[in-house]
């Protein structure tokens, strides 16, 4: 069974699309330990984002096995922030949705905001931030401080 402590393990994972027919990821195996800083480097269109989507569970692999922790944070290229929520509410969103109690959510949110140095912008809306600040907000949400992050 997977848990928050399980490292990310990909075993001979392949991913192909039907329309257009293309084999994006061909038999990739990798393991990422807890706390490890892992960089995936390659030219454009080589399947880096696809591998991240496979790790996050947004896409299902065509073949192979993906093992991932239950709680996973992710930073999306286009931020994936909700424009109608303040920075603080955006940061708190994932924790709120995972059903944590209010006190826990508040504490986690404060911690996240401090981690990305955006305490002063907590009451602003994403539209009022710079691109870099938006990425910081996007990087901070996660159900708990222990959750992993994929960028």
């Amino acid at each position, binding site marked *: 069974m997977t848990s928050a402590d399980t490292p990310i393990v990909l075993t001979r994972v392949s991913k192909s699309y039907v329309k257009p027919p293309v084999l994006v990821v061909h038999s990739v195996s990798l393991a990422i330990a807890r706390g490890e800083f892992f960089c995936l480097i390659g030219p454009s269109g080589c399947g880096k984002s696809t591998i991240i*989507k496979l790790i*996050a569970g*947004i896409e299902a692999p065509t073949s192979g096995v993906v093992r991932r922790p239950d709680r996973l944070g992710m930073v*999306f290229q286009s931020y994936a922030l909700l*424009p*109608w929520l303040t920075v603080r509410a955006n940061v708190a969103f994932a924790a709120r*949705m995972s059903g944590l109690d209010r006190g826990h959510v508040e504490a986690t949110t404060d911690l996240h905001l401090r981690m990305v140095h955006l305490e002063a912008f907590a009451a602003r809306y994403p539209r009022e931030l710079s691109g870099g600040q938006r990425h910081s907000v996007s990087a901070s*949400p996660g*159900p708990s401080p222990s959750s992993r992050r994929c960028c």
Partner: protein
Amino acid sequence: MVRVAPPRTVSAAREWPKARMTSRSAPNARQCSSSASPAGLPARSCHRVSAWTPWRARWRSSASVWAPPSQGLASSRTTSTAFFVANHAFELAAVFVIFLSMLWNIVCPVIGGLQTIPDDVKSAALVFKVRGWRKFWYITLPALFPFIVTGSLLAWAQGWTIVIVAEVLHTYVPNGNASQDLLGLGSLLVDANAQGKNGVFLAALAAMILLVTLLNLAVWQPLLHLSQRFRFD
């Protein structure tokens, strides 16, 4: 509010098939040919009567759908409106007509608005396990808010046009007459215009313009301003 005794409508409605029969046997045409030669009526007026009769007969047979069940598929608006009228729910009949005409102004923008939710936001919902009604309540519905506001504004604008027709019940109720019209700005405009009451007409028009302007300032402008916050960049 109904101006004059509603029961008349029901009896008129029940007698409807008979009325259609008489109009189909075309007494007007016979009358025309018999009266044209002795009285020496010009041919043009005769043409107008005979040309008008089949049109009227066609309109009546399409409106009579609710009476005989064998008429098959028909405009649901006519059928349901007649249902409301037969049950003396005159206000509801008008509300129903306005509702039907307004509905699509909201539904179509909302369907288009579903396409504007970015893929990354959908993926984020997946990663953070936001599903079902929570996804609808916290992501889909707020994302659709600008489209609901825009659609409502368009629907509201159209409502002002339709209310003129909807309140004047005799324009779409079979065998209806002016006494069934509902009291409202729409019927006031139509009746004042028909009876040549220019003062009443202008007053009703001014009231309508005032109402539209005030509601625009008090409701729609703030809502449109608020909805800007809900748009994805």
